[in-house]
């Protein structure tokens, strides 16, 4: 199986020479490095609540290739879904390789190359997890080239220098490509000393995105744009009701429609294959399906299941004693968040070609290798005979951590022996999402005589995030006893509060819920940070001072204090509204990155309007500060969208709405005109960036509304 195959490949000493990489390949050379950068013990995981995106036995393998024109091609094991990873990886590699950033080209590794990440691209961990191994590998590669150059030039390696992809010494020069030409045996040195930060040329600089031109000129880089010769198009019928199964499908009319090549009936879906997409779609509408709908789910039914006190209980955090429920000084507030859709603009889909016992699939996916496994299993093929070719993603946000629909594309292709392209309709996207689960929270707190919290408790109920995901082996959940995805942001970061608790209640809902950018963080931070403000008001304290006083002075406590202080200072935070505008404060720490927001709002025509957001993030080393800022800006607005506009509901057994518009999202007019991002480098490694700033936004806005109107909003999406 793969595990074995991979093990064989990833020897630190193994060095690979490949010829002929199709259009790319002139001269190819590569090297593997084995690392397991975020493999932590499950217990450590439980403590930090960092989901183990790389799982056990996963390695971040990368592969360089040198082309004749001295271009270095980096086959990325992580996919590019907008987060700017390709640019960051190019910067990191360029610095250690001693090449110019423009000499580096980054492409997606496919499974045939053997260098895909075993687990996924997610958790904002791409740069963080590849930081060390990529630098080591690039530095090793540079030394290999130098060593070979020394032999070819007859100069001692100590007299050679490297710059811009050229080795120089003794008045002679050779490009890396020239050095590599005709070399079949390489000596791999021990990992050389890595560059000192002061000598970075590219890391830490706001380099423009390397995929910018492709995206500005409309290049066909996405899964949706992929084609294969002689390709057919397909559409698929799926159940619209939650839990429905197909009894029968009448395809007699559709079969005879223009362009229809074949209609494939499977267990719970029907695939229509036609010459063109519009023909497939027209035929789809002519098919009558009889569904068995065991239960007409309603929103009330879901809310009934999903409550603190119901489902599996897990104490995630426990310090000091429990609050006495009879104590009349205990303040209790309830919060909730709705079902959230991913709503990435590029629909899911795939182009598949299955022929002669081999499958090739071009797909936008965050789980390259898991998709390979799923297809191999479904078709009864060896993994080696399934090649998954990832493309640029038209958005990920966690939706593409399950791309098992590749199997459907493969089955359809197998049925006709020709390549088939198919993708979800928007309605299918909305009804067959793996949603952000709805949540319910009860916050309890009690002040002491100094007006600080003596006790703080967060009780929350959530549907699946990590549990039942293809990403996590069931054993991890069993060991932890909790849904570590739902737990993100659920613990109390104010460790100076003598008594604090976080208790999770987990329930699996009748529709798929799973990873959604920032996981539990959005709802958990909304509950905790709204409550913190409420308690500050009750104590008659400034909300910033109130928070600072309850953070401890360990390393993380200090880093959280730093972002809070900076946010207050940079925004000129004040409690009292001025000229109809109020400020709201909130903070969180997510997967090691503390973040604080101050928002400025007013109420216009009965609607909350966010004018300005000051966002302070401690992300450690910002490999590309401009792209870190872009991630913050995007997270802030996506957070506004989720916290103020978005909501899926269950009605008559179906999930609604099924289209943009009715599924209200932030548009241009809802985006704040000012977003002031301040980055703090509180650690000497790059830390997660793409999710932490989603956390505080809901609470910050709700806290501002409270200060402006006196009204405490407790349910997302916020409405007056």
């Amino acid at each position, binding site marked *: 199986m793969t595990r074995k195959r991979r093990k064989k490949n990833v020897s630190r000493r193994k060095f690979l020479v490949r010829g002929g990489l199709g259009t790319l390949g002139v001269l190819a050379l590569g090297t593997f490095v084995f690392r397991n950068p975020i493999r932590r013990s499950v217990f450590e995981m439980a403590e930090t609540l960092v989901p183990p995106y790389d799982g056990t036995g996963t390695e971040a393998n990368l592969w360089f290739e040198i082309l004749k024109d001295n271009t270095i091609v980096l086959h990325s094991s992580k996919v590019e879904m907008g987060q700017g990873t390709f640019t960051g990886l190019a910067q990191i590699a360029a610095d250690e390789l001693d090449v110019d950033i423009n000499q580096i080209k980054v492409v997606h590794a496919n499974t045939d190359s053997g260098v895909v990440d075993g687990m996924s691209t997610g958790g904002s961990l791409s740069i963080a997890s590849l930081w060390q191994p990529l630098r080591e590998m690039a530095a090793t590669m540079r030394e290999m080239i130098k060593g070979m150059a020394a032999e070819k030039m007859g100069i001692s390696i100590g007299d050679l220098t490297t710059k811009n992809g050229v080795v120089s010494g003794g008045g002679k020069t050779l490009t890396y490509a020239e050095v590599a030409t005709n070399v079949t045996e390489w000596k791999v040195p021990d990992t050389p000393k890595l560059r000192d930060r002061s000598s970075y040329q590219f890391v830490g600089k706001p380099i423009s995105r390397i995929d910018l031109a492709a995206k*500005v000129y409309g290049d066909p880089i996405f899964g949706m744009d992929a084609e294969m010769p002689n390709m057919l198009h397909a559409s698929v019928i799926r159940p619209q009701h939650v839990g429905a199964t197909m009894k029968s499908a009448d395809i007699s009319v559709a079969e005879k429609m223009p362009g229809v090549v074949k209609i494939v009936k499977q267990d719970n879906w029907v695939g229509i294959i036609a010459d063109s997409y519009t023909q497939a779609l027209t035929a789809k509408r002519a098919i009558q399906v009889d569904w068995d709908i065991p239960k007409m789910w309603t929103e009330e039914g879901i809310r009934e299941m999903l409550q603190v006190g119901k489902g599996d209980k897990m104490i995630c955090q426990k310090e000091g004693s429990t609050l006495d429920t009879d104590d009349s000084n205990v303040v209790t507030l309830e919060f909730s968040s709705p079902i959230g859709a991913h709503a990435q603009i590029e629909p899911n889909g795939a182009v598949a070609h299955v022929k002669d016992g081999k499958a090739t699939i071009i797909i936008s996916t965050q789980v390259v290798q898991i998709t390979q496994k799923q297809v191999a299993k479904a078709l009864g093929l060896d993994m080696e005979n399934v090649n998954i070719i990832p493309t640029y993603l038209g958005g990920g946000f966690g939706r593409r951590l399950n791309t098992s629909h590749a199997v459907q594309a493969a089955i359809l292709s197998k049925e006709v022996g020709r390549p088939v392209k198919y993708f979800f309709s928007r309605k299918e996207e909305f009804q067959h999402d793996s949603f952000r689960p709805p949540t319910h929270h009860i916050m309890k707190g009690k002040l002491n005589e100094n007006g600080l919290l003596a006790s703080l408790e967060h009780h929350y109920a959530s549907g699946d995030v990590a549990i039942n995901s293809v990403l996590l082996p069931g054993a991890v959940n069993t060991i932890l006893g909790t849904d570590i995805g739902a737990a993100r942001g659920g613990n109390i970061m104010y460790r100076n509060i003598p008594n604090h608790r976080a208790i999770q209640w987990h329930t699996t809902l009748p529709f798929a819920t799973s990873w959604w950018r920032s996981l539990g963080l959005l709802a958990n931070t909304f509950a905790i940070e709204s409550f913190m403000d409420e308690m500050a008001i009750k104590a008659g304290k400034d909300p910033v001072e109130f928070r600072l006083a309850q953070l401890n002075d360990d390393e993380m406590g200090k880093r959280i204090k730093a972002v809070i202080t900076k946010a207050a200072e940079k925004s000129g935070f004040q409690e009292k509204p001025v000229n109809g505008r109020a400020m709201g404060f909130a903070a969180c720490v997510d997967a090691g990155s503390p973040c604080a927001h101050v928002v400025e709002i007013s109420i216009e025509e009965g609607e909350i309007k966010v004018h300005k957001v000051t966002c302070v993030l401690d992300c450690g080393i910002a490999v590309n500060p401009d792209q870190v800022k872009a991630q913050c800006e995007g997270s802030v607005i996506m957070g506004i969208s989720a916290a103020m506009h978005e909501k899926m509901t269950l009605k008559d057994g179906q999930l609604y709405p099924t289209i943009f518009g009715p599924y209200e999202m932030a548009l*241009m007019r809802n985006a704040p005109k000012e977003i002031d991002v301040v980055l703090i480098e509180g650690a000497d490694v790059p830390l997660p960036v793409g999710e932490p700033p989603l956390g505080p936004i809901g609470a910050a806005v709700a806290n501002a509304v409270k200060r402006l109107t006196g009204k405490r909003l407790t349910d997302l999406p916020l409405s007056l």
Partner: protein
Amino acid sequence: MKISFNINGEPKSIDIEDENSPLLWVVRDMLDLKGTKFGCGKAACGACTLHVDGAAIRSCSYPIKMAAGKNITTIEGLGTRENPHPVQQAWTEHVVPQCGYCQPGFMMATAALLNKIPNPTDEDIDNNIVNVCRCATYYRMRKAIHRAAELTTVSKPQNQ
């Protein structure tokens, strides 16, 4: 039936059975211009925005028969790397795209807006740019739109 139009400055004739087929699929699948994107098929997201006789159209909901005899411009015809449209130049300066999927639609919508209102206010932008970007790049887009307006009015043409 045969339908003729100009696309990105070139005359084209296509043979299509269903005259109500959306323009989007003709452009993407028959003419192999993949820059115009599919997002919803219901005129609700704007990913498929292109120009018909200079106006922004959501091509997923525009029957091909209506394009007969008209001038169509897609992102591929808006500008090139060598000769970018001011909107593309502004987008590049402000590093707007994240995943990039929605961006052609936004750039086409912006280019059409600037034809109509050369110097749009924030309110004009809010009212006219109503596409959806899930990566939520709106903050940089707004700046880029103002910059594109500046580039358009200051120097015309700016790419000699």
